[in-house]
């Protein structure tokens, strides 16, 4: 076997080629990390947002979009009284009639940004159990409480959505009464209104949905209720399945993310391959000389692999450093909420695998071109 230092020293034969290989692999790995973090972040926030214990009652035909859904206000009390086995706390049934709306709101600094608005009463806290107030209090009429990532959705600094500040919608000024968290869910990007306020501001006389939390009840019981009360024109869907469907809705966006990443990465891969081809082609005679001395092709191939792995893994390390500073912990707003990019073990594994594969598979064609020619002609090559 050739000593490892041979591979190491070969790296520095041509610093510009080394830079190209390291830079190319860093770009490929960084794009892969970004794509995986993006799609996983979106999937995770949507899957964490739905509970298997919650059921959404939405208007028939609106199972895929709460925004378009119309549910009579009477459905809330009808559900609470008719369905047996709904969770309760201190005698209050965990049923929450809600209005959901997307509209731009204005902050005190004059920035207007898209916001996700939810009109609720305090019973919402019984169904959305992840929600926890970290500052202030639940909104009374004329007030709102904001999720701690709502500022990212609006595109304003967090300081614009502190307790005591105001947001404006039309001519209405709404005081921020509290800030809540709901770790890892889309709820953290929402602004919660008093339901009556939102109803009057949106001039709605119906709800968007009724969410209930099951205790001993099962989905079939709730479906039976919707059949029995077909006058309400309701459809029941488990909350986790609703968000899974929503996730499917974003598949084209995720696909586009991958296509873009793959196209850019392909360019970098071919650039890198070209660099390796040139680097190895310049050494056909040297490889042939080493073979004539008695080094086998496998030993030489391993040395070439070591060399390109050193370059690609250096690129991978740089990609992780860039991802750590540029991506990790960064929140990304999308139409349904906000998700956080995390360098999770799965993302790290994907990046490492990409770096390894680049070094291993990317070396095979140029190494074959370098090692396969017959020795007499390879020894004469220029």
């Amino acid at each position, binding site marked *: 076997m050739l000593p490892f230092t041979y591979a190491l020293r070969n790296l520095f034969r041509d610093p510009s080629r080394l830079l190209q290989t390291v830079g190319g692999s860093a770009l490929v790995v960084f794009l892969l990390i970004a794509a995986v973090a993006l799609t996983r972040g979106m999937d995770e926030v949507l899957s964490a947002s739905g509970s298997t214990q919650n059921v959404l009652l939405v208007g028939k035909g609106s199972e895929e979009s709460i925004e378009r859904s119309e549910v009579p206000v009477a459905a809330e009390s009808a559900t609470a009284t008719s369905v047996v086995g709904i969770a309760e706390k201190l005698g209050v049934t965990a049923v929450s009639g809600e209005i959901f709306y997307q509209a731009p709101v204005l902050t005190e600094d004059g920035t207007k940004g898209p916001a996700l608005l939810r009109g609720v009463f305090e019973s919402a806290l019984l169904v959305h159990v992840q929600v926890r107030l970290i500052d202030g209090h639940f909104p009374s009429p004329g007030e709102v409480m904001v999720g701690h990532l709502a500022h990212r959705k609006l595109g304003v600094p967090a300081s614009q959505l502190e307790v005591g500040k105001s947001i404006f919608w039309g001519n209405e000024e709404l005081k921020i009464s509290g800030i809540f968290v709901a770790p890892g869910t889309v709820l953290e990007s929402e602004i919660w209104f008093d339901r009556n306020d939102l109803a009057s501001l949106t001039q709605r006389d119906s709800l968007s949905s009724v969410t209930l939390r099951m205790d001993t009840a099962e989905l079939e019981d709730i479906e039976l209720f919707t059949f029995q009360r077909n006058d309400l024109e309701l459809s029941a869907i488990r909350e986790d399945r609703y968000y899974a469907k929503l996730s499917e809705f974003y598949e084209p966006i995720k696909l586009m993310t991958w296509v873009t990443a793959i196209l850019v990465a392909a360019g970098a891969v071919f650039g890198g391959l070209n660099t390796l081809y040139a680097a190895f082609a310049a050494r056909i005679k040297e490889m042939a*000389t080493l073979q004539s001395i008695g080094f086998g092709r496998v030993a030489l191939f391993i040395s070439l692999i070591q060399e390109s792995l050193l370059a690609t893994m250096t690129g991978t390390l740089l990609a992780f450093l860039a991802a750590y500073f540029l991506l990790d912990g960064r929140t990304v707003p999308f139409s349904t909420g906000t998700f956080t990019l995390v360098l999770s073990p799965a993302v790290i594994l994907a990046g490492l695998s990409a770096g390894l594969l680049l070094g291993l598979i990317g070396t095979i064609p140029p190494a074959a071109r370098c090692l396969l020619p017959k020795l007499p002609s390879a*020894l004469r090559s220029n």
Partner: protein
Amino acid sequence: MSSLISIQSVSKSFTKGKTVITPLDQLTLEVARGEFLSLMGPSGSGKTTLLNLIAGIDTPTSGEIIINGENIAALSRAQLTKWRSVHVGYIFQLYHLVPILSAYENVELPLLLSKMSRAERREKVLAALDLVGLADRADHRPSELSGGQEQRVAIARAIVHDPDLLVADEPTGDLDRESADSILQLLNELTEKFGKTVIMVTHDPKASAAAHRSLQLEKGKFIEDGHLLNKQPAEQ
């Protein structure tokens, strides 16, 4: 004197497009142990092809090449690679040193294939460099050496693992007269003092005259009248 190399009816041919080219045709040759043989002939006469066959770098289309009792024509590529690492030292016209390695490291390369300790390798490398007169240049890179010095390093690399056979393809072809003469003197010493068998391809009649025997090749065959016996090989 015993024969180290016995070549029996060796032919080499290959196809180029639809044409069959036969650079070597039914060659038979015996080379004694410790002999310094030169192969001469015009370009395309087959001398380098013959040298490559003897060095185990190429395989014949037919015939036998028996070196030290072993028919290397029957060995696989992997077996030939291993065989070369023990039995052959190859000296190239353009030295073929690895540019990123020092003279010491270049000479050490063949020893990396054996199970020697670092200390044993060091002893052998320094002895080989000393023999070619370059012990003081051990840490120099090829780019820091003259052509003659590079060829000496290449010779040290070819002999460091103590092979029976040295093959040299135009070893003086890229050198000035003075350097060429010193390389030829060195090759002679290797046969006479160390009993190495040297086969050298050359275009240079003066270089050929330094060998014990010179054979002329033309169109893949030896020319009978071209045989020259310059001097007798050293007794073993």
